[in-house]
């Protein structure tokens, strides 16, 4: 069920309506859990059983990890939980990729038999809810979290429909306490709370959802044709066309994914849940590590806390260990995005950028610090960072390795010809205008800070004008059918 479809609007209105009308605690919790399963069932049919399996696996292994005093038993249950869900993820997501590569290797070695592919459908959201569940049992193992006693509560956390299929990846330590009723300011009771839709949350949630729809349906969907125009077959494209394409794709994927996150966070806010930001003006990042503290924050922090730190923490004084841990973590992050070499390359590139930056900063930060604190220095660091980020987007969008190599060469070694680029611009005027508009709006929102919060605090008459101002272009520039979100394929 796509967020930008009538189906979701109908579904969401029914859920909100039912919660508002029937103020019975147990009914509300069961309703949201069933709605969440229905939400996934609607798109994925019987594959909803994988979600149920994941929930049961991690709930019970989490409980056993907490109960057991023996470190060996605790480790065994942790391994069961981790391997269990990673096996499911690995099977559905990577089996066909592994077999394809194995068959290619077999051809090179003149092996006669080929292993047949299963052509498995990728279950929607599996990458997200698997990581969400893994963080639960790992936090219990580390002693950072007390497991919930209620399966209902745990199911609510994992299956929560606004974040189920494309994040943000929730942490149990942030989300589970929100499920409990607050009796006094600091304490929470053991009971799951009654949901009451607050006015401020409603206004904020609607504002954020509308902004999310605007990003997705006006920017992302209308810039996509320009990206396809350039990258469907980039061979023969001029350098400036490639650069234009990578900028367009960066804006498309940002608007697509941050738009989705906004809708998810807004929907959760209406239901009374605070979900952390998933994007924070990444195109103003001043370094690769700053970029990853602003882009897909829930995933990058997950990788940092559950992959990078365990690998690098003990030997953090060693540049080699840091370098290789960063590279390995980012390679896996790339692979998480898809079973394909281009995603591995994309992750690898970011790993190299991060690693080189980290090592350089460690060794040379003091002499150059005053420069980078100045305005020119900040502008320079933003420019260099974004140059590298948009370069890496080529690996994200171009699957064919020959095409990718060609595009990357053209990005770095400029040919200074413009005739084809001008033709592309003329054929895609609207997309170009949107790119310019995006740059302006993005800068304005960067200067203004938390724009959705400010908008939700407007007086009602100005708030209505804002809604009309945003909903009108959504309806006028709607491409005609709900377009899938890019991150659904992960």
């Amino acid at each position, binding site marked *: 069920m796509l967020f930008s*479809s*009538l*189906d979701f609007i*109908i*579904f969401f209105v029914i859920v909100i309506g039912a919660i*508002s009308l029937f103020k019975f605690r147990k009914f509300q919790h069961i309703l949201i859990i069933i709605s969440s399963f*229905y939400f996934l069932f*609607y798109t994925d049919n019987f594959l909803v059983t994988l979600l149920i399996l994941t929930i049961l696996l991690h709930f019970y292994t989490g409980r056993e990890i907490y109960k057991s005093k023996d470190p060996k038993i605790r480790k065994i249950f942790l391994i069961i939980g981790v391997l269990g869900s990673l096996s499911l993820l690995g099977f559905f997501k990577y089996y066909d990729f592994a077999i394809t590569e194995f068959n290619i290797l077999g051809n090179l070695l003149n092996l006669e038999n080929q292993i047949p592919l299963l052509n498995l459908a990728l279950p929607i959201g599996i990458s997200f809810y698997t990581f969400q569940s893994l963080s639960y049992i790992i936090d219990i193992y580390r002693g950072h979290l007390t497991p919930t006693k209620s399966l209902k509560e745990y199911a609510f956390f994992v299956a929560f429909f606004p974040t189920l299929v494309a994040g943000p990846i929730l942490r149990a330590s942030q989300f589970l306490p929100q499920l409990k009723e607050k009796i006094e300011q600091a304490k929470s009771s053991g009971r799951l709370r009654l949901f*009451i*839709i*607050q*006015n401020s949350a*409603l*206004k904020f949630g*609607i504002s954020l959802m509308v902004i999310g729809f605007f990003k997705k349906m006006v920017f992302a969907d*209308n810039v996509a044709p320009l990206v396809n125009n350039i990258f469907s077959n980039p061979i023969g494209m001029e350098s400036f066309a490639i650069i234009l394409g990578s900028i367009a794709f960066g804006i498309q994927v940002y608007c697509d994914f941050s738009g989705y996150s906004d809708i998810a966070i807004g929907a959760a806010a209406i239901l009374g849940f605070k979900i952390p930001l998933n994007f924070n003006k990444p195109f103003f990042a001043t370094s690769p590590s700053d970029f990853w503290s602003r882009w897909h924050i829930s995933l990058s922090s997950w990788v940092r806390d559950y992959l990078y730190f365990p690998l690098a923490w003990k030997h953090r004084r060693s540049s080699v260990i840091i370098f290789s841990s960063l590279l390995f973590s980012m390679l896996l992050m790339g692979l998480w995005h898809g079973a394909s070499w281009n995603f591995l390359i994309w992750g690898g590139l970011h790993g190299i950028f991060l690693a080189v930056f980290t090592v350089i900063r460690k060794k040379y930060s003091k002499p150059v610090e005053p420069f980078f604190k100045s305005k020119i220095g900040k502008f320079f660091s933003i420019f260099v960072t974004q140059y590298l980020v948009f370069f890496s987007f080529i690996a994200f969008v171009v699957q064919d390795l020959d095409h990718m190599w060609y595009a990357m060469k053209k990005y770095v070694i400029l040919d200074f010809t413009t005739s084809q680029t001008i033709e592309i611009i003329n054929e895609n005027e*609207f997309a170009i205008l949107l790119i310019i508009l995006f740059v302006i709006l993005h800068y304005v929102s960067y200067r203004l800070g938390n724009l959705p919060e400010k908008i939700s605090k407007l007086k*009602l008459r100005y*708030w*209505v004008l804002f*809604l*009309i101002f945003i*909903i*009108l272009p959504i*309806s*006028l*520039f*709607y*491409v*005609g059918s709900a377009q899938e979100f890019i991150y659904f394929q992960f």
Partner: protein
Amino acid sequence: MNYRIIFLFLLAIGVTSIILLFSMDLYIHIYDPDWYGILNLNQKTDDEKKRIFIIGGSTLHSINAVYLNEKLSESEINFEVYNLADAADRPTQRLKSIENIIDNKPEIVFYGLGYTNFEKFKAKEFDPLPTFLYNPNKLIRNNFELLLDEPLNYIFPVSPKERTLLSLKYILRGADEHYHPFIKFKEGQIIDLEQIEKIEDSRYIDALEVSKNDKEVLALNSIIKKLQENNIEVVLFSFPYSRIMLDNTEINEIENFEKMLKNKQKQFNVNLFFLHDKYSNLNIWIDRVHIANNPKTIIFTEDILEKIIEVID
């Protein structure tokens, strides 16, 4: 929950819906061949030539008006042809903008019609509960269509973006292509009929509604009448279909359609010619219903040219 916030949100949606519905056909209501846009206010058109408008649906997009005008010019015929074909056009839709057509003072209007313009609409019946579980969108849509007795596509625009951009560009700098103001006459590929058959689902036309009280037929009558009242000559023709479409339509339904047009010919004393099966077996198509915009498909334009010269003479 504050119902005021909900009310204001719904109000915002209501206001934008009204603006959307009014703006979708804006370009066709304000169209003027002499308009070159706010950015080109000094540009003028050739006022001396008389005008011929070709109106109808997207199936007429491939009539190359530039080619027609070149040929008319070579023969020193003092007429200019404008292809005003508009996507999803049908008589009830075209009637809404007929005053604009009349205001632009054409001498002759060639109106292309297809039997699909008169397809009998029947909202599908679904079993409610399973549909609601698997596809609530379809259930809502079907119930709306049953209520309105019309496909939702007729009321709500399929691709608002295209129409919005058309209007905006037209206001700022006039038609992208002077003789094809509503569509981009871009060269397209011809796809083999066998290939089209493989990649596209067959579309069966169950029944047509061409009785004299049908709203599309009544709209057609009104269009012809209004044009004739303003001394505009009307030429009706049936637009081409591929064999894939014709093979999936009952012959007697096509005959009813032909009969209806012949009745109009007699009733209003208009010229009429049929092209619906003329090119059905030729490989000049891009899909089941559209001839490709391609130099190799010029046969359609040339036949129109022949008819234009015949009518002028």
